[in-house]
C-alpha cells in the first residue's frame, strides 16, 4: 500500500521525533476523550472513523505524507479544494484567484476573518510563511511547489505567487499533502518537534483533542469553536479514529452501531454491507491504480519482448471479475477523471501473442524455461488475486513466476537495492497522485532517477524525461497539448517500452452508518472524510 511509501518518504526524522515525543504514548486531553459511538445527541455527536492502519506517523503539516491525511484534512485547510464533480479547484481558504495569461503569476484572495486554532489570523503573511516553511523542510510532497519562485503577501488577504514556469497552481494548492496553511509562529522552539508532540496549528473545523499512539482509539478531534464556517445547523462535534486492522471486526463494529464509518472492507463484506438495513455503502472509482513495474534494466525482462509477453499474459477482464467491484478496468496509466486519461486503451489478455513473443526470445513452451520474481504487498487480497492469475497464466507458457508477499519497507528496499541482482523482475504497487493531476505518475515513477526512489522500472530514457518535464507547463497553458503529450507518453511507456502493466484501477468501497448524512467520496483525498460537511442523523 502506498501509505507505507508515504510513511517512509516523510522521513526518518519525523519518526524519531514521534518516538521520542510519545514514548509515554499519551498526549493531552485524554481524560476528556469521547467514547466511540454514534448515539450521542446532535450537540455532541461523535463521528467514529475506523481505519485499518495506524493513523498518525507525522503531525508536521510540512512533511506529513502518510495515513494521517484522514485526520489532517479535518484539522488543516489548504487554499483550494478539488471538486471531483466539476474537476476543478474550489474555494477553501482562498475565495478567488486569477492567473496571468502566461500562467506564471497567480494571485489568491483569502477568506477574511479566518483564524488559526492558536488564535492568530490566517492572513497573506501566514500563507507565505507556511508554504515557504514547507518548501524549506523539503520532505513528503513538498515537490508540488517546485514551480514557485517567490511568494508575496501583497496585503492581508492577497497572496501573489511568481512561478519559474507555468503551472496550474490552483490545483497544486488543493493537494492532499504539503498544501496545508498553518501558523508557523505557534511554537517558540523547534516547530516540527512541537507538532509531533501532538499539537496542531491549523484553521480547520476540528482540533486535536487526544492522541494516544498505539491505542485502539488512537486519536480524537474536537470542534474548533472559532471555525470560519460556524457551527449553526447540525454537525459532528467530535471525531474518533478507532484503529481496527481486521476487516471482519470493523464490519461487526459497524453492524452493532458502535462506529460510523469503515474505510475499507473486502468485496465480499462490502456486498454483505450493501444488503444490511442500518448501513449505507458507497463505491467510487478512485485515482489509485495498481502498477506492475517491469525491470527494464537488468534480469530477463531487460528484453522488451519478454516484458510485452508478461503484459499480454495478465487476465485483465478475469481480474476485474474476480475483484467483484473492488477494481475496474484500467485504460492507460492515468485513471478516468484526470487530465491525461486515454479512453479505449483497456488491455486484454492475449496468451497466443505472449507465447509468440516468448518463443521469439527463445522461451515459451518447448523453449528454455524462464524464471521471474515478483514482489507485492503482504496481506493485500486484491493483489493476491492478480498474482494467482498471472502465475497460473505464465505457468502454461513455461514461465515460473515466484511471487513474494512482503512488507512495504522490505519490498521497497529490495527494489532500490544498489546490487541489481537483488532486485525483482516485477514490482507491484499502488500509485495515486498528490493532487488531482496525472503528472505524479510520470515524474515520480517513470522519470530517470538516481538513486532509485519510485522509478522501480529503472527506465532511463532521455526522450521520455524531456517530454515528462514539459507536462506541468502544458497543463497550465495548453490543455489540448497536455492531453496529447500524456497520450503520447503512455503509448511510449506502456506500448513501446512495456515498462509497466496497469492491471486495474481501484474502487473505494466504503460502508457507513445509516445515520450519517451527506457523505461523498473525494478521490483526490484518499480515504478522507470531511466530517464538517456531514450531518449526524438519528
Amino acid at each position, binding site marked *: 500500500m502506498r501509505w507505507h511509501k508515504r510513511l517512509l518518504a516523510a522521513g526518518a526524522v519525523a519518526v524519531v521525533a514521534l518516538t521520542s515525543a510519545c514514548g509515554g504514548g499519551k498526549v493531552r486531553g485524554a481524560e476528556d476523550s469521547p467514547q466511540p459511538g454514534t448515539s450521542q445527541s446532535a450537540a455532541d455527536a461523535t463521528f467514529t472513523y475506523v481505519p485499518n492502519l495506524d493513523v498518525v506517523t507525522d503531525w508536521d503539516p510540512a512533511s506529513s505524507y502518510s495515513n494521517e491525511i484522514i485526520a489532517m484534512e479535518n484539522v488543516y485547510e489548504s487554499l483550494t479544494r478539488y471538486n471531483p464533480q466539476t474537476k476543478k479547484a474550489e474555494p477553501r481558504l482562498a475565495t478567488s484567484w486569477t492567473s496571468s495569461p502566461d500562467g506564471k503569476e497567480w494571485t489568491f484572495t483569502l477568506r477574511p476573518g479566518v483564524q488559526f486554532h492558536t488564535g492568530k489570523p490566517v492572513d497573506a503573511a501566514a500563507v507565505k510563511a507556511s508554504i515557504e516553511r514547507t518548501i524549506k523542510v523539503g520532505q513528503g510532497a513538498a515537490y508540488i511547489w517546485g514551480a514557485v519562485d517567490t511568494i508575496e503577501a501583497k496585503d492581508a488577504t492577497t497572496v501573489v505567487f511568481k512561478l519559474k514556469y507555468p503551472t496550474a497552481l490552483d490545483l497544486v494548492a488543493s493537494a492532499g499533502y504539503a498544501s496545508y496553511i498553518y501558523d508557523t509562529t505557534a511554537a517558540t522552539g523547534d516547530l516540527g518537534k512541537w507538532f509531533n508532540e501532538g499539537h496542531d496549528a491549523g484553521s480547520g473545523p476540528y482540533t486535536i483533542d487526544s492522541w494516544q499512539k498505539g491505542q485502539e482509539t488512537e486519536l480524537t478531534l474536537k470542534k474548533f469553536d472559532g471555525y470560519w464556517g460556524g457551527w449553526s445547523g447540525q454537525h459532528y462535534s467530535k471525531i474518533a479514529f478507532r484503529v481496527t486492522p481486521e*476487516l*471482519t471486526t470493523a*464490519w461487526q463494529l459497524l453492524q452493532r452501531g458502535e462506529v460510523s464509518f469503515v474505510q475499507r472492507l*473486502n468485496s*465480499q*463484506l462490502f*456486498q*454483505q454491507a450493501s444488503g444490511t438495513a442500518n448501513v449505507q455503502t458507497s463505491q467510487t472509482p478512485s485515482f489509485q491504480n495498481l502498477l506492475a513495474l517491469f525491470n527494464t534494466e537488468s534480469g530477463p525482462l531487460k528484453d522488451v519482448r519478454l516484458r510485452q509477453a508478461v503484459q499480454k499474459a495478465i*487476465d485483465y*477482464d*478475469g*481480474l476485474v*471479475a*474476480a475483484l*467483484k467491484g473492488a477494481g475496474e478496468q484500467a485504460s492507460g496509466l492515468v485513471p478516468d477523471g484526470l487530465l491525461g486519461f486515454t479512453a479505449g486503451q483497456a488491455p486484454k489478455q492475449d496468451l497466443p501473442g505472449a507465447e509468440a513473443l516468448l518463443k521469439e526470445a527463445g522461451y515459451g513452451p518447448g523453449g528454455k524455461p524462464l524464471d521471474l520474481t515478483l514482489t507485492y504487498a*503482504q496481506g493485500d*487480497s486484491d493483489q*493476491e*488475486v492478480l*498474482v*494467482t*492469475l498471472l*502465475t*497460473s*497464466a505464465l*505457468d*502454461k507458457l513455461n514461465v515460473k*513466476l*515466484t*511471487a*513474494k*508477499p512482503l512488507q512495504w519497507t522490505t519490498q521497497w528496499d529490495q527494489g532500490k537495492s544498489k546490487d541489481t541482482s537483488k532486485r525483482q523482475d516485477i514490482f507491484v504497487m499502488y500509485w495515486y497522485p498528490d493532487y488531482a493531476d496525472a503528472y505524479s505518475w510520470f515524474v515520480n515513477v517513470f522519470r530517470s532517477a538516481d538513486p532509485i526512489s519510485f522509478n522501480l522500472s529503472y527506465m532511463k530514457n532521455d526522450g521520455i524525461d524531456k517530454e515528462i518535464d514539459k507536462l506541468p507547463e502544458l497543463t497550465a497553458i495548453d490543455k489540448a497539448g497536455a492531453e496529447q503529450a500524456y497520450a503520447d507518453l503512455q503509448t511510449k511507456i506502456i506500448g513501446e517500452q512495456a515498462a509497466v502493466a496497469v492491471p486495474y484501477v481501484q474502487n473505494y468501497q466504503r460502508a457507513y452508518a445509516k445515520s450519517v448524512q451527506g457523505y461523498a467520496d473525494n478521490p483526490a483525498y484518499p480515504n478522507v472524510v470531511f466530517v464538517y460537511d456531514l450531518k449526524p442523523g438519528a
Partner: protein
Amino acid sequence: MTISGPAGAPTLQPQLRRTALRGLAGMDRLATVGAVLLAVIVLAALLAPLIAPYPDDGGSATHPLEALLPPSGAHWFGTDQVGRDVLSRVLYGARTSLLIAVAVLVIAGVVGVVLGVVAGYAGGWVRDVIMRVTDVFLAFPALLLSLALAVVLQPSVTTVIVAISVTWWPWYARLTASVAASVSTRGFVDSARCLGVPAPVIVFRHVLPNSLTPVLVQLSLDGGGVILTAAALSYLGLGAHEPTSEWGLMVQQGQSLFTTDWWVVTCPGVAILITAFAFNVLGEGLRARLAR
C-alpha cells in the same frame, strides 16, 4: 479383543494392568481408524487426476468469472478467488502434503538414524561430537529454525522439505543413539566384536535393526507434525507457491474470506486436520502395540 490376563500371569496390581490393557485395546481401534483414514488420503492423492472433478484446476487453470461460488452439485467444496474448484485443489493438495511428509521423514529418518546408531555404538568422543551437534539443532525451536531456513532459500516445496528435514533429524539421532547405546552392550554385539566382525558390519547388521523400533513409531507419529509444519510454512508464504495446490497456501489465501466464503479456508483446513489426526492415532496405536 479380550482383556483377561493369561493364566498364571503375575497378580501384582491387577487393577492397574486391566486399565492399561483397556487403554491399549482402545488405542488399537483408533489406530485402525488412523490407518484407514491415511489409506483413503493416500489413495485420493494417488488417484487425484482420475477422481478430481476438474483436474486442470489442481494446476494452472483459472476461471475468474466463476470466483467464490458456494458449494453446489457442480462444485462440492465451492470455488476459490479465481474460480478454481476447491475439491480438486484439496485432492491435488494431498499429493503435495504427502510428498512433503514422506520426503521429510525419509531424509530426516535416514540422517538421524545413521548418525544416532554410529554415536550409540562408537561412544566416546564420536558420540560426544554427534550429540553436541544434535544439541545445537535441538536448542532452536523447530518451527523457528525451519522459518529461518525457508526465508533464506527460495520459497518452494523443495525448500519446505529441506527446511523441515534439517530441524527434524536431531530427534531421530538422539532417540536412536540412546537405543543403540543400550543395544551395543548386549551379548550378541560383544560376541560379534570378539569374533572380529568389522565395526561397520556390526553397526548396520546388528545394532541398527535392533534400534529401529522406537524410531519407526516416532516417524509415524511425526507424519502429522511434518504436514502441520509444512502447512505453516506455506501459510506464511515460505513454502509451496502458486499454481501448486497446497493446503497451507489455500488456507492462507482464504483466511480473509472466512466469514463470507467459509469453504475456501475450511475445506483445506479440515483436510490438514484429518491427515494430522490420522498420522497421530496411527502412531499412538503403533506405540501402544509395540510397548506390549
